[in-house]
């Protein structure tokens, strides 16, 4: 498959990348790992006039400790996220979710930031980003700004990023010592989630002190199951509490509503167990 012609640019700094993006205009696009963009180009579903490859911006790679939060560079690959100790210790949910993405080949190229910017409602990283209150740190011609996940995901494949902006880092508040689980239902290993549930819980003194639950692929973007979270807090992590809370993941009677409830129950059960 052959994409339409485009100009290829390889900036060596964030400032240069932002400048290039502005200069090339609306039809320019950032390319990160290319695991979502290249298929789109090859099928000619999009025909950007210029691709600005941010693969050379080493400052966007890696995970840093920033006090109460982690800063995850947008260009950090799935493979790196899976193996990062900071992520493991302070945002276990992200590691568990990333483990389920695609296959090793794709995890070596696909990036954390690219997944969020692509904003495929079936993409696995949106729900945990929302549930963990992640904040996007964005650079544009007007400087830097921060957008919380709750405002970042706007619609199917649409984020709060302006065409001339680049996602630099994602700030993820530390959830040290929380237990977590990602319950994903997909038909074959390389298929996307039909529905998936990301859950993180903090248990203190035999009671759930805090809970975070995000749903993948139940709407035009990730959904935070706030009613479920509320039903858990202050309760002991028992089977009956969990099954009661899980019922609040959805009120409909369709297949996906059912999955939202069932998988929420399973995600929470697995999370509190371990």
């Amino acid at each position: 498959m052959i994409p339409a012609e485009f100009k290829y640019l390889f900036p060596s700094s964030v400032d240069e990348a932002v400048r290039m993006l502005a200069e090339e205009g609306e039809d320019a696009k950032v390319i990160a790992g290319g695991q979502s963009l290249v298929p789109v180009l090859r099928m000619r579903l999009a025909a950007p006039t210029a691709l600005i490859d941010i693969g050379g911006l080493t400052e966007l790679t890696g995970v840093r400790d920033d006090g109460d939060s982690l800063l995850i560079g947008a260009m950090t690959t799935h493979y790196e996220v899976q193996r990062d100790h900071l992520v493991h210790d302070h945002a276990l949910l992200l590691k568990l979710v990333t483990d389920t993405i695609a296959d090793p080949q794709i995890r070596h190229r696909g990036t954390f930031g690219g997944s969020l910017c692509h904003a495929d409602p079936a993409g696995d990283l949106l729900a945990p980003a929302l549930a963990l209150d992640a904040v996007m740190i964005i650079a544009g011609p007007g400087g830097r700004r921060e957008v919380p996940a709750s405002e970042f995901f706007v619609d199917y494949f649409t984020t709060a990023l302006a065409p001339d902006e680049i996602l630099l880092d994602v700030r993820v508040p530390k959830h040290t010592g929380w237990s977590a689980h990602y319950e994903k239902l997909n038909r074959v290993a390389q298929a996307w989630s039909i529905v998936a549930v990301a859950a993180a819980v903090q248990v203190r003194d035999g009671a759930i002190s805090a809970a975070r639950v995000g749903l993948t692929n139940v709407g035009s973007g990730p959904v935070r199951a706030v009613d479920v979270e509320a039903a858990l807090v202050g309760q002991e992590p028992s089977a009956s509490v969990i099954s009661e809370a899980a019922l609040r993941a959805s009120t409909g009677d369709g297949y996906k509503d059912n999955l939202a409830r069932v998988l929420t129950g399973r995600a929470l059960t697995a999370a509190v167990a371990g």
Partner: protein
Amino acid sequence: MTATAEPEVGKARLRKEDARLITGQTRWTDNLQLTGMLHMAVLRSPVAHARITNIDVSRATSMPGVAVVLTGEDLAAEQGSLPCAWPITEDMKSPPAPALAVDQVNFAGEAVALVIADSAYHAADALEAIDVDYEDLPVVLDLEVALRDNDLVHPDLGTNKSATWIFDSAEAGAGTDVEAEIAAAEVVIERTFRQQRLIPAFMEPRSVVVDSSAGMFTVWSATQIPHILRWMLSAVTGISESKLRVIAPDVGGGFGGKLQVTPEELLCLLVARRMGRPVKWTETRTESMLSAHHGRDQLQKITLAARRDGTVTGLKVELLADMGAYLRLVTPGVPILGAFMFNSIYKFAAYRFVCTNVFTNKVPTDAYRGAGRPEATFAIERMMDELAVELDIEPMKIREKNWIKHEEFPFTTVAGLTYDSGNYEAATARAMELFGYDDMREEQARRRADGSTVQLGIGISTYTEMCGLAPSRVLGALRYGAGGWETASIRMLPTGKVEVITGTSPHGQGHETVWSQIVADRLGVPFEDIEVLHGDTATSHKGMDSYGSRSLAVGGTALVQAADKVLAKARTLAAHMMECDEADVEFASGSFSVRGTSTVRALGDVVLAAHVAHDLPEGMEPGMDADATFDPDNFSYPHGTHLCATEVDTETGMVKIVRYVAVDDVGTVVNPLIVDGQVHGGLAQGIAQALYEEATHDEMGTLTSATFADYLVPSAADLPAFLTDRTTTPATSNPLGAKGVGEAGTIASTPAVVNSVLDAVRHLGVRDIEMPMSPERVWTALQGRPDEGAGEVAAGGLGSIDAQGGQS
């Protein structure tokens, strides 16, 4: 039969082919670069049924690098009609099938215009600059709707029915009258099954290169059928067959999907002739899914008559088979190949098969792994389970009651075939033992009693198939346009090395390895000294190519015959050289000797003597080569018993295969490693039909499963570890005793899985679930809701990028 010290036949040899394939050393068709080569890109119809009112190529023609833009009108005078080699009835309706649509398109994906440019990039860019005006026609998609003839795919034909083909055991004298059996039956069961549309999904996309230099046309194509292709291209274009050379280099899979004379092969040839320059076309994956032929797509109405003791007395099969928009090479015959298999391993008194072939505005269907036989096996194995449930008889017992006993072979079936050999009892006993059948039933009972959310099901599929295609006289009787023989040549080279030329055309099967093993044993030469040549009509001038699990049973037999001819001549010459009577010459381990003496001549010495021809017996021609052609008397009939255990998660509808046992009887095994590979791949493909794969369309006829994000092909990660074993009842219809293994796994596994899933949830009120048994379908069935045949739930990925994705 003579043998080397350690026989090659039966050895699990690693494949000769693998090093070059795995290390990327081979040259696929798309790797070819010829001087001055042009590149062809194909504009395809986005609509399923429309009149073409105008095509404006002016913008495209002036794009960079474009040599010419061609429409159907430009080629109308020379393109003729793509061939259909199987007119199943005298009055079969077959519309003209232009390679490039002229004034009407009949399926979405049909070729409408060609760009020929100096690079594939320029060709692809210019495609977008062609403007086509379409005037929509009513789209016919559903088989039963099509049958009403309200809207017609081809108005000129006056109907959407292409042909009706009937077999009736009473009329054929092979059995009693099925209507009488049904009328007299104690139990009658009627069911309708849908065989969904499948996409062959071979790994290497199709690719064609045509070189028109030196007054010859050389066609490289990723095809399964270089010989048939040469014949058909010559017939369609009028180019002398002697001026056409077809080469199938290494080909990356076919599964029947490359058993075709494709529009693009013909178009490349026409373009090369017109331009006087080499031309290449290579498809994209989506293009492949939109335009290469599809498989299956039948509606099967099955009526089974039985006695209350479980004895089946009659079977009536009424099929609607979706041809798609045109009849390709063997499109109409695919369901007919199933006609002889619905009775399977059983002894039914009466059988009637009626198939109506129907046109729709979809991609043409044609051969796909198993071709007709998986559909038949599915239907009868599902029906045996339905009967077992109806009569409350253990499903294996009901099969046993009806199957042909081992002492009854050879057995002539109600469909008129004579099964030469088999032992269903042995394969079944072994399968049940490996599976732990009784323990599994106990576990199932436990889960039912507990009301577990994860229920266990056990599915049985006892199958046979007819392969080793095919006795030419039978093909003739079925009105097929060609024979079913196969040919082989052996060239004994003066240095003692051996060239084997085969008319089969491997595309992943490993013939080079297996053919070498056979010849090594036969002639006592080292495996490594044998080179197998195939897939080039200049070296292998005749052959019927590879499909229908025929290559070993038919092509391998031709090879044995050729080897025996070499030996016969060598024996005469050896006797001459050793100055003895031919009757006293013995052959063992590659050497001739005179019985009771120490006089010995190695085969290599005899070959050299034949080559130099200094001293040959009176009348003997120099050289030691031999050709042989084998036309089988009968098909071969592999069989086996497959058992599948599935867990069904009743809360999500997810199905997981927890144990799969396949005990196959494929006759003599030349290379167990290759046989295991064929079984594993076949199982994966059959399981995929049961659980994952389906070509879907929207109401406009657009294919909504045109990427691998939407068309779910399982990988190793999705499949269980298979427990396989074999029983060996050699075929009596060929000297190798081989039956064929290319399709067995695919044929057997689909009903094993579906029976298993239904067995898991039947006590919860579920009677049937359509394939593929997606979690949503299973869950919906468990809710007691009718399956609206709705598309699958959103699954994102490319499917969700493409607004028209099948999983929106």
